[in-house]
């Protein structure tokens, strides 16, 4: 078999395209479980905030810790190549860096109202999704931008219903995103 450089280049392009699509499908599939998890947790957290406004002091730390542990477990299960290669450690470090950054901003800008805190954390998370979307796939970019717009819309327009807005629009949106990812990766 004799190939010319043009044919060889075309074959290598085909390989690169398939490798990109496969990686994206694997990321989407693994990410769907995480979307379901955080969608359910944020839905429950905001709903509880709505019914028990002062519960935020203990609900959100519990959600952050519990959700983080389960997220790492899902990552190591869904992405076995991360085991033993420091991948889990990178995720832990990224999550901690995210929490520390958010915490520092909250301390520096203190005192933030509960409403301001309620808009700060989801938009910070969605900023991370926008960054991820630039590297991994358009879906994360779209959900990052859309969710940010919806959270800000609720902040300015939802009045006293903001916690309920966040529960259904943000938490529910993450769950819907999980279903979309699952379908797209299939």
């Amino acid at each position: 078999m004799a190939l010319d450089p043009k044919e060889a280049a075309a074959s290598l392009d085909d390989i690169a395209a398939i490798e990109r699509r496969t990686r994206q499908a694997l990321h989407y599939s693994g990410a769907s479980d995480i979307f379901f998890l955080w969608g359910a947790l944020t839905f429950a957290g905001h709903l509880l905030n709505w019914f028990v406004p002062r519960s935020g002091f203990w609900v959100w730390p519990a959600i952050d810790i519990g959700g983080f542990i389960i997220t790492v477990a899902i990552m190591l299960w869904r992405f076995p190549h991360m085991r033993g290669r420091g991948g889990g450690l990178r995720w832990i470090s990224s999550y901690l860096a995210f929490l520390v950054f958010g915490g520092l901003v909250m301390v520096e800008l203190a005192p933030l109202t509960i409403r301001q805190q309620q808009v700060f954390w989801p938009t910070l998370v969605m900023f991370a999704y926008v960054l991820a979307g630039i590297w991994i796939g358009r879906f994360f970019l779209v959900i990052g931008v859309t969710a940010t717009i919806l959270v800000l819309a609720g902040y300015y327009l939802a009045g006293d219903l903001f916690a309920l807005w966040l529960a259904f629009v943000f938490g529910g949106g993450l769950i819907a995103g999980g279903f979309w990812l699952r379908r797209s990766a299939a």
Partner: protein
Amino acid sequence: MPANEIIHQSMRLKIMAALNVLAPDAHLEFTRLKELIGATDGNLGAHLDTLEKAGYVVIEKLFVGKRPQTRVKATRAGRRAFADHVTYLREILDGGGDA
């Protein structure tokens, strides 16, 4: 580095490219592989048979609950053959291989 005529066929090249992305013992379901590379059922089945006969992939048929499922993974020999073929292609671009 010689060419691998089994792997070089367009659809088989795509199959091996997709399977090579996975962790060493990971599988891809038949339907997902079909969508990733844009093949039909019959087309994909025929090419997988060729790759299996060459020892490059392993095909497993199992049941998940009551649903039959076919899944595919690359063998070590298949990954090596794919890597060698990619090297061959790059050598052509670098001017060192066949032309």
